[in-house]
């Protein structure tokens, strides 16, 4: 999932600001999206992700800065002349037209012959798995079918960038998971840049090459999914993506790119510089770790790295997984720990004393 340097820049945001009246919706966005990338804008509602997407499409003007598409400044270029197409959250399928007419809508000024256009429409429908649906009335389609029509309608114009505004939020869970996979395949097949707006962190992790996490009109972190998950650069990002446990820590010494800390429950640890992130201003330093980086050691198992003692306080059984809330000795707050259920291994009861193994490499220091 790494990107080589020769990939060209498709979208460039240069210090983009956007005001609605007194409301500062985008606060200096600077970022680059590469050609052919599956890129996600992730954040809670109201963080400006949709606004940012709409500045690419040309539905929102910007107050200052620049939006470049394929090296061209888009200032003054209206939506209908930009090399982007959009899949709307509501899909925006024209209700008075058939599926074919919807998909072929953007071909009105295309110089090709009628037959060629019809062939293009059929091809686009086949690509999204709606072969033979062409003559159907648009308002008779299901949610999943509408979305496919919206995709075909946008992709038929061979845009440089496809913009997807929460395209899966209206679908049920099963359908959503199926469409996630289909969208990834489709993106690989057509090879154009996809930009997805979503508030669902799991969706973003599953689908994207890179993710920009946004809060309050700013990009908090821009990275590939793994970095984002393992090395969130701030407490806010860590909290938004997955679950993260925090333990109070004290910084003892810093030297040669390493940081020595004393953490509650863990004792003295030495961390590398890339394990250090930002905590909110005024907060005390803390060590953070994901639930799956702690492992309960059952009888006879040898510790892999380091080991602490803990008490089980709560057990939540999920079938394939079990979540434990445990309290490490010497700490005050319970930590969330997740264990994959393996055949033959018991689920622990509340109150059980357990040995817990952990590894310093999985920790992040927020300071």
């Amino acid at each position, binding site marked *: 999932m790494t990107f080589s340097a020769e990939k060209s820049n498709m979208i460039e945001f240069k210090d983009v600001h956007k005001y609605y009246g007194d409301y500062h919706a985008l606060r200096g966005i600077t970022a680059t999206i590469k050609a052919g990338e599956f890129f996600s804008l992730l954040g809670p509602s109201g963080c400006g992700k949709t606004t940012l997407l709409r500045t690419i499409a040309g539905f929102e003007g910007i107050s200052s800065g620049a939006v470049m598409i394929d090296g061209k400044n888009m200032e003054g270029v209206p939506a*209908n002349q930009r090399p982007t*197409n959009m899949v709307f959250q509501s899909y925006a399928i*024209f209700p008075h037209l058939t599926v074919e007419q919807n998909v072929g809508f953007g071909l009105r000024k295309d110089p090709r012959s009628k037959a060629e256009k019809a062939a293009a429409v059929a091809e686009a429908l086949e690509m999204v798995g709606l072969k033979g649906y062409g003559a159907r009335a648009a*308002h008779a389609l299901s949610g999943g079918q509408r979305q496919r029509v919206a995709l075909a309608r946008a992709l038929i114009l061979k845009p440089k960038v496809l913009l997807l505004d929460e395209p899966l939020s209206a679908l049920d869970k099963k359908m959503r998971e199926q469409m996630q996979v289909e969208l990834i395949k489709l993106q690989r097949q057509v090879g154009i840049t996809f930009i997805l707006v979503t508030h669902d962190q799991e969706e973003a992790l599953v689908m994207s090459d890179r993710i920009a996490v946004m809060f309050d009109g700013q990009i908090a972190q821009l990275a590939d999914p793994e970095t984002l998950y393992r090395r969130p650069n701030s407490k806010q990002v860590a909290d938004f993506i997955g679950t993260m446990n925090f333990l109070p820590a004290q910084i003892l010494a810093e030297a040669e790119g390493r940081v020595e800390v004393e953490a509650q429950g863990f004792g003295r640890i030495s961390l590398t510089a890339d394990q250090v992130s930002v905590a909110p201003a005024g907060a005390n330093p803390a060590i953070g770790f994901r639930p799956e980086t702690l492992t309960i050691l059952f009888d006879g198992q040898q510790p892999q790295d380091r080991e602490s003692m803990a008490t089980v306080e709560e057990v939540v059984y999920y079938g394939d997984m079990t979540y434990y809330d445990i309290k490490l000795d010497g700490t005050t707050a319970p930590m969330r720990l997740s264990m994959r259920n393996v055949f033959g291994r018991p689920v622990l009861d509340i109150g059980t004393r357990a040995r817990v193994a952990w590894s310093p490499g999985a920790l992040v220091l927020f300071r």
Partner: protein
Amino acid sequence: MKGGWFRVYTLAYLVFLYAPIALLPIFAFNNATTVAFPLEGFTAKWFAKLWEEPELHRALRNSLIIACSSSVLATTLGIFASRASTRYRFPGKAGLMGMIMLPLVLPEIILAVALLAVMLGIGMPLSLFTVILGHVLVCTPFSIAILSAAFQSLDQSLEEAAYDLGETPISAFRLIILPLVMPGIISSLLITFTISLDEFIMAFFLAGNENTLPVYIFGQFRFPQNVPVILALGTILVCLSIALLATAEYFRRRGIAKTGGKDTGGFL
């Protein structure tokens, strides 16, 4: 039966609502000059007499001119206002819309005398044109009520999708918005036509020496011997109104079905 006493009551209420209209054809075909029971046999002569009244024909022609012009003008103004109020936020919107919708509740007599005062004040002679000006004022709020529903059910992203797919604002309006609100426009034309055709007070004050159909009918009430003819005329008008309304309702529903919306009921 669902509703029990409520159903009985509502049916009785409908009888009350329809009583006058039901009597209309009964006496229009009754072979007597006095309008009273018992009935005196069937006749169509009152309808035949309608052909012999040149004054009536002139009034009808005037009313049609007024109703056609007013419905087109009111619907045009209605399109502007309802599009503006459903699509844009702008300062003073509530106040402007309130002023435009005011004739819906203002007693018509006050509108009529105010317009009369202005027309005479600026020296504009009373004519069919002044009636049209008044009728447009009365019809526009109804048009807006109908068209706002049509514009409201329009998802704004449909319009954006059209821009996104390469259309200009004008072609997007023509290709997407117009077809989708067309049923509402037709419905508005029919309803405002019906209102204008029936409107009496404005015409009474603003028509000058000309007659419109309601003004003519009002005049005929003074002559008891003409009453059966008026009832015959009324029968035709009522049938015409119902036909126009049923058509309007048909288009309104088709509009809702087209946009895939949910039917929430009446015109108002």
